[in-house]
């Protein structure tokens, strides 16, 4: 499977819609052990990403990612600005110049993003952050594409991502706001892990739609 630039843009636009649909859920999750703003932050960011992507005529998928990342870096702030924003810019730089994407490019995208997030935020698996969703995804996807096609590999990796996201429920947070709660952070999903999963899941749904 090869994703065209136009389809790639749609994938990104669909992610914006998926975030918007889940704003309240994200807000509630963040309110449990954080400060309750994750939903609003993400909504604000991804609405602007949508606007800017729709206004852009670029056929360069890397540029699309940079546009999206810069929106977050320039306007959103919070933890999400540098983490998602820096991650998207990094992924965009990695894919710069490409107007179609095979399964390896998609690995490159998420691996670059993960690397940026880990190096900036310093989180490791088990710290109760988005890394708990993204790292299992990248690891599993990297293994899976050796034998499987993009959609099947993505599906398999998404299952690992979901497991990772769900695992954050039982973890005592070690990073970010919620880490201040110590034991009291247990029993709640991490909101960043959740929004990362929503992004991956939306990506996957868009792919399956492309297949039909």
């Amino acid at each position: 499977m090869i994703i065209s630039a136009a389809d790639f843009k749609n994938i990104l636009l669909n992610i914006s819609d998926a975030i918007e649909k889940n704003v309240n859920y994200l807000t509630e999750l963040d309110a449990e052990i954080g400060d309750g703003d994750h939903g609003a932050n993400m909504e604000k960011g991804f609405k602007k990403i949508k606007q800017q992507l729709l206004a852009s005529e670029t056929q360069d998928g890397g540029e699309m990612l940079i546009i999206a990342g810069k929106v977050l870096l320039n306007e959103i702030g919070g933890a999400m600005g540098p983490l998602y924003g820096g991650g998207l810019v990094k992924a965009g730089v990695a894919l710069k110049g490409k107007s179609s994407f095979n399964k390896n490019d998609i690995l490159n995208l998420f691996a670059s993003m993960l690397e940026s997030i880990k190096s900036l935020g310093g989180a490791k698996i088990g710290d109760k952050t988005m890394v708990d969703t993204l790292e299992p995804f990248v690891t599993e996807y990297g293994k899976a594409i050796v034998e499987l096609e993009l959609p099947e590999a993505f599906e398999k990796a998404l299952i690992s991502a979901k497991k990772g996201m769900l695992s954050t429920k039982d973890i005592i947070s070690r990073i970010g706001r919620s880490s201040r709660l110590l034991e009291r952070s247990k029993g709640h999903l991490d909101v960043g892990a959740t929004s990362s999963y929503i992004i991956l899941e939306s990506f996957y749904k868009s792919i399956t739609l492309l297949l039909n």
Partner: protein
Amino acid sequence: MKKFINDPTVVVDEALEGYVAAYPDSVEVLSDARVLVRKKDPSFAKVGVITGGGSGHKPAFLGYVGEGLCDAAAIGEIFAAPPAVWIYKGIKKINMGKGVICLYGNFSGDIMNFRMAKTLAEMEGIEVDEVIAKDDIASSPKDTMENRRAVAGEVIMWKVGGAAAAEGMNIKQIKDVASRAVFNTRSFGVGSFPCIIPATGKPSFKLEDDEIEIGIGHHGEPGIKKEKLKSADEITGVLLDAILEDLPFKNNDTVSVLINGLGATPFQELYIVNRKVTEILQKYKINKLITYVGEYFTSLEMAGFSITLTKVDDEIARLILAKADSPMFKQFDLNK
């Protein structure tokens, strides 16, 4: 939610506009980034001081942009760190060739954005350094005090760092003395009613009618434990004892005292707290350099208060007593 606002999504922008409209001779906002800067240049080239963070903490952060305090503040959304690019633009604006020091609080969003801004500025040859306040003893045990979040103790960091810059110290000297102030500052607070974030319209936490949260964070983060409401004297005793033990503060130490209301708690109650603080400090023969009582770092309309003690040496004392003049923090020179 019964708030005097227009559109919840532009609350921060409109408030900033109203702030500048109130003090047009003192402050202005950058054209391409939500950064408040001093309007009048200092009388000589000095190290620039920038702060920033989420909104909803008035008078922080914007109220501390003024003479003897900060030269700029990057203004994030309610309770969310400002974007890196804004901070970077603020740094560029206030750099007078002597470099810029970033004085902010220990929240991961702020750290990541300030550090990215620092990288951007350094790439252009601007010297940038930072001091991060970590004064809230409720947020992490002493052996992991590096993880502690910042609360009202940031005000002391700004006062000391801002006065140091105004005296003409270089960036390393400012970093040294502001770090020492941070290291010698301890805060502990309590909350009794939540705040309501305009964007969501929901309370930031829940408490029973007779409950308080010991160790509450400045964004409504849960503290150490929920307890039944006690008398002001008892609560003050619990908070202050923990603070005194943590540094520890000792006989004959001199301290500055900051009793900070979180927003909805009447000043009257803050003074009742200060009454007990004074009594306890006298008991331990700890001297007071100066006492600040009021709203210095709020959390929207949250109810509750925090106590902040800073152990001072001669240099820190001089800087705390120095003149400061921002629209919301005015102090005549007390060293005279």
